């Protein structure tokens, strides 16, 4: 039904374009037009399609919750919990589709009939109202056209409005992220004190398994369950290992590319190194888990060390390889933008090339390089699949790179894989972790971007 309405609107809008254009040509025979005939067509088509489509979209979005409100309003006085109401409503819906297999009650049957009834009314009133709006708005536009009013300006304002709305998508996404994270996190902190989360030393979300919603109200069972310190520590520890691999290799290859490499080497080696950044992270994860992890374990055995097959070293090391191209190409850009006269001055004083790089160019480029490293750190912290596949899933508080640790991202995946129950502190804990991840990476990015921007302005 929905697609029929949608198609009708599209078809009517299309045909009104031709209709409007034809009308313009008719007007042309005795009056001067205010715009090209096609604008008359656009004008009519927009008035035909846009209001009707808007109403149709809003209706489709709000219809389910309005119907739900009407059905459940009969039972709201009975003091039922939110979860029970939800369950009841799901039962009503499945009964109305004849897919219900549970126990039938009179209430359920009555509500299901009411539900079908409402849906029917809603469907037909939607058709009638949308179509009458369409006819009304098209009629209005048609009288406007007949009077030969300006058509180009309104059409262009409409287009500009559409452009503007598209540019709001980025803001809406950010709002959506903050809304979804914050909403769940606040609920989480109503059960778990903020202090316990930020400073708690034990993370065992599996302990918080509840069978039904009433159990979840007892906060005592969550003490010592959601202490995020081991996870934060693990995240920064793995990021540190990654940066220990990525910074030396990335920075040195960036410097070499910028200062020494011949044009040919740059032309070929640079894109090849950048392939490393284009490989999906799940592939790195597989590589770390299947090749690097066992390799380190065997190496450790031959050296008499006990290495976990899912060591922080394997995950961090492979993550470092992934970050090399970010650091190398960013620092390459930064070094190339250092003005040539600084180099010339240094050479004129008799310095060798490496001395110039170490004592003149590197200090001059330092802010930009720090910015690129910060961006790399933010990537390392937000990286998920490598850690999920190659590092452990139990949150150990350790500084031994040969043991396994866990990170924020890995814990989010562990908690949310499979079916989740909203309203369960365990699920909310994942959102709280997500919010901390979002804040940390946001701060890192803002700092890094502003450092790089300031640096660019200095030399431009």
């Amino acid at each position, binding site marked *: 039904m929905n697609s029929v309405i949608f198609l009708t609107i599209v078809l009517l809008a299309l045909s009104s374009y031709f209709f409007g254009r034809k009308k313009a040509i008719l007007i042309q025979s005795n009056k001067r037009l205010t715009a090209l005939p096609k604008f008359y067509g656009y004008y009519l088509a927009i008035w035909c399609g846009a209001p009707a489509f808007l109403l149709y979209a809003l209706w489709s979005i709000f219809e*389910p919750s309005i119907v739900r409100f009407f059905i459940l309003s009969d039972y709201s006085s009975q003091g039922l919990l939110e979860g029970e109401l939800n369950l009841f409503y799901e039962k009503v819906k499945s009964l109305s589709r004849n897919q219900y297999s549970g126990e039938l009650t009179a209430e359920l049957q009555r509500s299901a009939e009411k539900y079908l009834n409402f849906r029917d009314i809603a469907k037909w009133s939607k058709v009638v109202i949308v179509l009458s709006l369409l006819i009304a708005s098209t009629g209005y536009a048609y009288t406007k056209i007949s009077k030969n009013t300006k058509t*180009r300006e309104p059409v*262009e304002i409409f287009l*500009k409005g559409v452009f*503007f709305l*598209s*540019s709001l*998508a*980025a*803001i809406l996404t*950010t709002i*959506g*992220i903050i*809304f*979804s994270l914050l909403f769940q996190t606040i609920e989480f902190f109503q059960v778990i004190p903020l202090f316990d989360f930020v400073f708690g030393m034990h993370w065992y979300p599996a302990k918080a398994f509840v069978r039904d919603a009433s159990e979840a109200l007892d906060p005592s069972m969550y003490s010592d369950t959601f202490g995020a310190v081991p996870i934060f520590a693990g995240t920064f520890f793995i990021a540190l290992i990654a940066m220990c691999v990525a910074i*030396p*290799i990335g920075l*040195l*290859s960036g410097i*070499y*590319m910028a200062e*020494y*490499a011949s044009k040919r080497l740059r032309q070929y080696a640079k894109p*090849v*190194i950048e392939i*490393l950044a*284009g*490989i*999906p*992270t*799940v*592939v790195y994860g*597989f*590589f770390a888990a299947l090749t690097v992890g066992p390799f380190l374990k065997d190496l450790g055995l031959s050296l008499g060390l006990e290495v976990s097959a899912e060591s922080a070293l394997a995950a961090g090391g492979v993550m470092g390889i992934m970050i*090399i*191209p970010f650091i190398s190409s960013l620092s390459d850009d930064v070094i190339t933008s250092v003005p040539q006269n600084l180099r010339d001055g240094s050479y004129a004083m008799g310095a060798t090339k*490496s*001395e110039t790089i170490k004592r003149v160019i590197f200090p001059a480029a330092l802010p930009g390089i720090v910015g690129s490293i910060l961006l790399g750190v*933010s*990537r390392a*912290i*937000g*990286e*998920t*699949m490598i850690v*999920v*596949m190659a590092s452990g899933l139990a949150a150990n508080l350790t500084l031994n790179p040969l043991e396994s640790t866990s990170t924020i*991202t890995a814990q*989010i*995946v562990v908690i*949310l*894989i499979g*079916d*989740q129950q*909203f309203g369960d502190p365990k699920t909310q804990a994942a959102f709280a972790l*997500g919010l901390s*991840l979002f804040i940390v*990476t946001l701060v890192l*990015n803002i700092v890094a*971007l502003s450092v790089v921007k300031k640096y660019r302005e200095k030399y431009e």
Partner: protein
Amino acid sequence: MNKEERLIKRYKAEKRFQFYGKAAIFMALLFLVVFLTKIFSTGYTAFQKTWLVIPVNYNADLLYLDPDKKPTTEDINDADFYEFGIETFISLDPDASEDQIMELKKMFAFTFERELKYYLLDNPDSFGKTVDVKLTASDDLDQVFKGNYPRDIPENRRRASDYQLKIFDKLDEDGRVISEFNASFFTNADSREAELAGIASSFMGSLFSILVCLSIAFPVALLAAVYLEEFAPKNRFTDFIEVNINNLAAVPSIVFGLLGLGVLLAVFGLPRSTPLVGGITLSLMTLPTIIIAARASLKAVPPSIREAALAMGASKMQTTVHHTMPLALPGTLSGTIIGLAQALGETAPLILIGMVAFVNTIPGTPMDPAASLPVQIYIWAESAERGFVEKVSACIMVLLFFLIFMNLGAQLIRHKFEKKWN
């Protein structure tokens, strides 16, 4: 230390520094080579599949069919091929004990009933005769044949028993073990049995997600970029949008997964595990990438084009739609393809919105539950059987092939259609 010695030392330092630089580049390239070699060397065998060709007697009595009448399609469909298959396997070793018969059965994929049936349906003439039929070998024997399984370890640590290996070697000597191109890897959906698992379902899942992502992200990003670059007034709000876009580009992908879960699934009630939700989530993620690329290519269109159009009496909107946008399109398109390639390799957000479900049917619309290629890699990598390791590598090869293909396409568009302004 005199002057010469100092100079020699300084030159040595220079050489050392250059060496470090070269070593760093070499290390980075070495990682890439090791990485690709490892993937290819473990993965290429997955494109081959091991078949056992065994003599099958399509005897009417064994199938409980009328020997004097040619069976119709319905008769064959109704016939019981399980018992028939077991009888066929016993003919490989007539002295087999009860346990050994079970082992014989386990040498074949559990689809042997279907394979025997379809052979007869395709070749009705073989009814009543003994013919050679190709049956899929179990993944354990498949791995043994490909040499991925050591045979010299004790029997209790092996998946294939001594007895199975004996029969298998006998078949091999008779030339009854053949290895052919594994078409089912591309046409089958996921399966719990490694020898039958394929990437068709996850491929379709990826395709649908990418199409949904493209159809949302491309128009919105293009229009947003046009607004910001051509129409937006210079004010605080525009700056705010810009900062927003730049930050969004660096938000970890898993946060978009949380957004999909918390808003698309929980608030809007869209169906879980579907490419529709996956595509929308990915489109929000690729939006900033495309906007940034589109703005860069709009910026690259020289002002003289705009001025010329305006001088000819075109309105601002006509200038933009007729002249600026078409010229910026190649750059935008190549940015879009690169953004889509990123989205294609993305795993974490799809896991959060439930696209990790085990899907053994091939999805037909974006509203059906599905996995995607990277998620399939994750699912297979987590399962213990050796047969899946080569499947994972092969799946990675397919994924990398598409990524390379898309990136080359982006390069091609950029070089071929983008105008250079000097």
